[in-house]
């Protein structure tokens, strides 16, 4: 069964999401990957304000391809989440509610998710052209100089994902 959820996520909705649930997400989300996370983390370490308010937000680990004329966005599938593991707990502590990416997370990230009541969604890696059909609008929020690695705001309708790790720390990712 597929659950339809809207953003921003409430704590009740998050509690109700279980590892393995298929979801279709509607609303707005932030994007960010390696370079943007590094900059945000450095600001947090220095105690300086962030260029975007992340409280209550969902962040999608993605570096989209350029949009063709007439398209809202280019292909935009998830990138590997583990590269953001070093930075994620600090963002979760500041109120980030969910992350969307692909692949494994560290124990530190999962512990922080449980502590802060957060969820990690997996989007299907390599299904970039398909996923981009659910992204209706893309605006630049910060770090425009980073190009594809800038922080964008995506407006999505029925964005397909799966709850990979829920707020209790249960995971459906196969690890050996």
């Amino acid at each position, binding site marked *: 069964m597929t659950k339809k959820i809207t953003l921003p996520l409430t704590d009740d909705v998050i509690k109700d999401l279980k590892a393995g649930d298929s979801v279709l997400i509607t609303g707005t989300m932030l994007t960010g990957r390696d370079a943007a996370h590094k900059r945000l983390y450095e600001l947090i370490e220095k105690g300086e304000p962030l260029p975007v308010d992340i409280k209550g937000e969902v962040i999608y680990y993605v570096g989209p391809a350029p949009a063709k004329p007439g398209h809202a966005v280019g292909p935009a599938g998830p990138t590997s989440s583990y590269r953001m593991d070093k930075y994620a707990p600090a963002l979760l502590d500041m109120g980030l509610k969910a992350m969307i990416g692909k*692949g494994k997370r560290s124990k530190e990230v999962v512990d922080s998710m449980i502590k802060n009541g957060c969820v990690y969604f*997996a989007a*299907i890696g*390599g*299904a970039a052209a398909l996923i981009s059909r659910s992204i209706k609008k893309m605006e630049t929020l910060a770090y425009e100089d980073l*190009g594809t690695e800038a922080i964008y705001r995506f407006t999505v309708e029925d964005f397909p994902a799966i709850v990979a790790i829920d707020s209790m720390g249960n995971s459906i990712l*196969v690890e*050996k």
Partner: protein
Amino acid sequence: MDIRRIEASSVTSAVKKLYMDMNYFIGEDIMCALKTAAENESSETGRNVLAQLIENNNIAAEEEVPICQDTGMAVLFVEYGERVVIEGGSFEQAVQDGVRQAYIDGYLRKSVVDDPVFDRINTKDNTPAIIYTTIVPGDRINILAGCKGFGSENMSAIKMLTPSAGIEGVKQFILDAVRYAGPNPCPPIVVGVGIGGTFEKAAMLAKKATLRPINTKNTDERYAALEDELLCEINKMGFGPAGLGGDNTALGVNIEYFPTHIAGMPVAVNICCHAARHSQCCI
């Protein structure tokens, strides 16, 4: 001995076409393997993922947009006929121009940074491409090209095994690398293996192996059997499509080998995602 003159612009346009086409149109070998996987996958989630990947590849081809947003770093293996003379520019520059034009005009993502450690500033045109050139007899230029995404590239591994490790050591190292990669490199994956040569030769062979269609076998039947055995073992691991569980963790295992030193047996494993994009042309 006659020389053959080739305009640099012909090389540029050939390379540009290779890169645009490989990013929009997945190879028949991969599409067939995905369809077969979807038919035999026992996990429902796995079947759904595979159906979405097939749909994704159809959308990319129809709309002429990239299959994956990570349009990779360009890697080319060139066999350059020794009787060819390039006119109107240099060969190296002609290839780099072709990659640049493909990534800019083809709406492909620019994913290359100038300095790996200190600056990390995007070069904004996806150059430089990595070009491996061999001089061969003849008056043709053969180009085997790939674009390598880094979600899977980061999961690759190399080890300087020694002869006493034997075939069991080779198998164990390859399987360990795939097991460690787990759900990260966008399974179902293509596993490129290079065995022999020197440290860097093994890695280059592994890269070249990822560019061979997965519906082909190594011509040495012992290595072909090893490809089959490893594919079977990998698919028993259970990572499945997108790492969410299932029978299809890999679509293919390709091995390339080369003579090596009496003291060594290098093994390199280059992992490639299901969007295994490669193409070739002859000029």
